[in-house]
């Protein structure tokens, strides 16, 4: 299936809005961290003035990536046409976009620019501004190809994506006026079902794009706030899992090259690959480099010749944020599933009544 969180910001709007309204009442208060605009200024200053910073190491000698990080970003995934081949903004432009981003927080970076907010998160008791995100001078998260655009799909992948859009779970979300198909739970997407919110790679989302990294001897663990999903990455050079074992977030192996943690992931579940890539041929490589006290430069390269006409790479800065990451009880209180399915039954009943009335009048 196509990764719904990618395809359309409208899909994401629907999903996130419903999640915000229905799914997570117990933790909303924990997520509503008050956000001092001063914090942004502090981070911005730290990024530019922190010359004396020394890379910390864990007690067992790994470069230290530990802490709470957010991938929230006001930078679009693909470069807007107006920037042409410009890779970087001026300081002033970056500051302006950052300011707009804060003012319009929770708009989605994938298809919508900061000046086009999708909805006002404060309506749902969420803080208007998530702490931590720092200005980014890049014009797009995609850095390769040099035009800042995701490469063209192969003809087969384009065909498969089109079919998935028409016939996959919640296909009708692409058209807000179409009825939602929700005959059975499998018609809902993986996030609505509390099965997986996707990744790798780490991307910016509308909110909750928060992570915790913990390093133990021989392992790096990445916890996603969404559904408290985790990746445990062994560093001991062990072989990949057998191809008979598939995982919702794939199965990762890591190693250090200098100060960069390189993570290669395979064994994806076919239903949960990034942007509907081919689980059998997708090569996903991530690079984590801590560049200062408040920043990890996170880069990923996706290479899947059966999906894209060439490999491509994006850089998503991870910014330090305050913890903790709350428990995200999802399936335990999955009101989305109940309400979407029950709503579809109500709509069917109403449609049947209407049809009956019309036929009686005739």
């Amino acid at each position, binding site marked *: 299936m196509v990764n719904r969180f990618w395809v359309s910001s409208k899909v994401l709007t629907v999903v996130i809005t419903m999640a915000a309204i229905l799914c997570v009442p117990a933790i909303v208060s924990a997520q509503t961290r008050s956000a001092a605009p001063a914090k942004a200024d502090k981070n911005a200053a730290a990024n530019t003035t922190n010359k004396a910073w020394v890379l910390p190491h864990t007690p067992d000698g790994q470069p230290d990536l530990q802490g709470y990080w957010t991938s929230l970003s006001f930078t679009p995934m693909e470069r807007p046409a107006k920037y042409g081949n410009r890779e970087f903004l001026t300081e002033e432009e970056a500051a302006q976009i950052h300011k707009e981003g804060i003012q319009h927080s929770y708009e989605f970076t994938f298809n919508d620019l900061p000046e086009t907010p999708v909805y006002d998160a404060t309506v749902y008791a969420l803080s208007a501004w998530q702490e931590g995100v720092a200005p980014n001078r890049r014009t797009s998260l995609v850095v390769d190809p040099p035009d800042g655009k995701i490469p063209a799909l192969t003809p087969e992948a384009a065909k498969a994506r089109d079919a998935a859009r028409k016939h996959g779970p919640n296909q009708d979300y692409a058209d807000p006026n179409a009825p939602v198909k929700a005959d059975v739970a499998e018609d809902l997407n993986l996030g609505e079902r509390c099965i997986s919110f996707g990744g790798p790679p780490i991307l910016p989302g509308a909110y909750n794009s928060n992570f915790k990294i*913990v390093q133990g001897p021989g392992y790096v663990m990445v916890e996603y706030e969404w559904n408290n999903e985790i990746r445990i990455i062994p560093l001991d050079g062990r072989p990949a899992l057998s191809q008979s074992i598939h995982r919702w977030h794939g199965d990762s192996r890591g190693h250090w090259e200098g100060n960069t943690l390189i993570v290669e992931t395979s064994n994806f579940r076919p239903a949960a690959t990034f942007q509907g890539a081919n689980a059998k041929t997708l090569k996903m490589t991530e690079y984590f480099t801590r560049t200062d006290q408040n920043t990890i430069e996170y880069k990923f390269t996706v290479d899947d010749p059966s999906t894209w006409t060439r490999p491509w790479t994006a850089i998503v800065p991870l910014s330090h944020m305050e913890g*903790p990451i*709350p428990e995200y*009880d999802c399936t335990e209180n999955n009101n989305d599933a109940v309400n979407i399915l029950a709503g579809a039954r109500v709509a069917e009943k109403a449609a049947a009544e209407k049809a009956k009335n019309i036929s009686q009048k005739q």
Partner: protein
Amino acid sequence: MKAIVLGFFLVACAAIVQAQTSAQQPGARTGPGGATGAKIPTPGEFPPYKGPRTADGKPDLNGIWQAFVTADIDIQDHDAQAGPHPDIMGAYGAWPGGQGIVEGGEIPYKPEALAQKKANAEKRMVVNITSDDRRHDTGDPELKCYRPGIPRANYMPLPFQIIQSTDNVMVAYEFAHALRTIYMKVDKETPQDPPADSWMGWSHGHWEGDTLVVDSSGFAPWTWFDRAGDYHSDALHVVERYTLASPYHIMYEATIEDPNVFTRPWKVSFPLYRRMEKNIQLVDFDCVEYVEKMLYGPYYKNSSK
């Protein structure tokens, strides 16, 4: 010397009573000569052991661990029994018998709470999912693929992994990818008091000698201790002790306190075993997709209900 050995067990071993009695029995088995390494192990007894340390000097609990008790079925002594739908499930679905993990055998329920436990057991497979908290009124949370809570997560029949850093002990459970964070310091981000109720609780840990002591509260009232309906309220307070007893074992004990449900604190204990398969790792048991029809079936198109 024996006193020192016994003293160690009193501190480190959960099976205190068993350890004392068996160690004093003249029939306690020893290999020829009784030399170190030649002793035939006696269940409930571990020779004195000082485990490895992490780079920051703490006992090293990192690893993949699993309990081998049947407490997830019933934390008290119980017979084997047919599982649900033996007509189609046969031995696949049957539940093994086993000895309980409750020290002293009895759980000190208040009378009205004991009645609730029995009602829970009777309705353990009655699942009625609504879009509000009534969904938690009946049905074993395990059946519904909900986070198991503490201490149940530690004796589910699936492994879990401990990843230990200076400030955090992360416990990742294969069952439903439940995750637990044990904060090793109290600060502004992770204050002593729980910021909100949660299924896996709010936990702080500290080291007492070679033992990791974990104090947890802030529990949602909906987890159970087993399929037999043993339960608690949101006043649950659990203090756990994890002590390496050999390169391959952690002795685990948990003291359970809940004045709404029990007349006094009580204790469970059992060993955890290190999974030793080459390249052992957790895989996915995200059971949501296996329970959806049970949970949401009444809302499906053409549902009979």
